[in-house]
């Protein structure tokens, strides 16, 4: 996961808050991923403009702890599941 890549949700998935489960969820054609609050925060910052490093820095400020590896690993898993794409340009 390059730190200067710019992550965003892929076109076919959508994130929303689910009042039933009181969690954010990531919805795709054949999948539902129930996110924990940190995951939802990370994806909320993935707008295709911020880099992976910038997302981690912002999150670090919010949580007051180092999250670099956590952010990269989380996004990596979602790239594998084709929910997130990384713009290298």
């Amino acid at each position, binding site marked *: 996961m390059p730190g200067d890549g710019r992550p965003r949700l892929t076109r076919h998935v959508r994130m*929303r808050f689910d009042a039933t489960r009181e969690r954010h969820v990531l919805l795709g054609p054949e999948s539902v991923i129930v996110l924990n609050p940190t995951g939802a925060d990370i994806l909320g910052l993935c707008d295709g403009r911020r880099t992976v490093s910038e997302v981690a820095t912002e999150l670090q400020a919010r949580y007051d702890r180092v999250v670099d590896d956590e952010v990269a690993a989380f996004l990596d898993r979602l790239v594998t599941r084709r929910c997130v794409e990384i713009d290298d340009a």
Partner: protein
Amino acid sequence: MPEPFGLLAELTYRCPLACSYCSNPLELAAYDDELTTAQWQRVFTEAAELGVLQCHLSGGEPLLRRDLVDLVRTAAGLGMYTNLVTSAIGLSRSRAEGLRDAGLDHVQVSVQADEPATADRIAGIPAFERKLRAAAVVKELGWPLTVNVVLHRQNVDRVAEIIALVEDLDADRVELANTQYYGWAWRNRAALLPSREQLAGAEEVVRAARARLAGRMEIVHVLPDYYAEYPKPCMGGWAARQLTVAPNGDALPCPAAQTLPLPRASVRDQSLRAIWEDSPLFTAYRGTGWMRDPCRSCDRRETDFGGCRCQAFQLTGDAARTDPVCHLSPDHALVTDAVEAANAPAGRDEVLVPRPHRG
């Protein structure tokens, strides 16, 4: 009590196609009395209240419902991810624009084979060219496109050509799903079940295509459970994650559950919540308490949930038995006999029985 994630709304069993692998029930006439627009809208509202996040609009052919745009608008307005599962027959550009404006999220188009002669023979009507045009409209309107190809003995040898076609259509995903033997497919099983050699060939093609198309197109390959060692985790567990509502309002934990000898549960008589939480059809096989050995003491009981209850019933007459697909099932010979017949050296010339067109 688990909360369901997905609703399969089988809006109608009417269909312009006559595919012999169709999983719709054999008694199609029993479903002619379809739910009204207002009844479906109530079902969607109750489903959303129950926690449903995905609404698959399917059939039969859902485009035959004249109220489809209104139904999509309702489901989308409830925040559900809406997925149209269609043959694409009847998906004109104006119809597609109406659906897009109503908030439809995703379209899945079925394709029967890579070229018109085979595809139209399987579909029972000249549908191939119309499907390609409709798939192009899906892309032009900016939707992600999934192409679904049901694989079987008559088309599995063409999987390389099928993948090439799907590439030409610029699909985002392709599902190469071997036939599941319910409904009309069950009736046609002997003519549809591929041989071991056919499957090995397809698997090699898919492996190479996945490597070549990585990052461009997702390839989902569903192998026939008859050849598996363990059964599929049907529906993610009985009445655990999904539910189906049939065209006549019957609510089902699995689309094939209308065959089971349990009292019907209809959205005409009860709320979806009452059905989900309390109806015998939904509670009978929820969790693991109903299991007998070998499932009861199996380490995989929470992994595959004993397989498919409807398949167990279909093959053994008892829905509480282990899915005979499992190599640990005492009834496993029912599956291996069918597999051996599909691999008999003489080769067979089974005739496909098409499901009737209903328009």
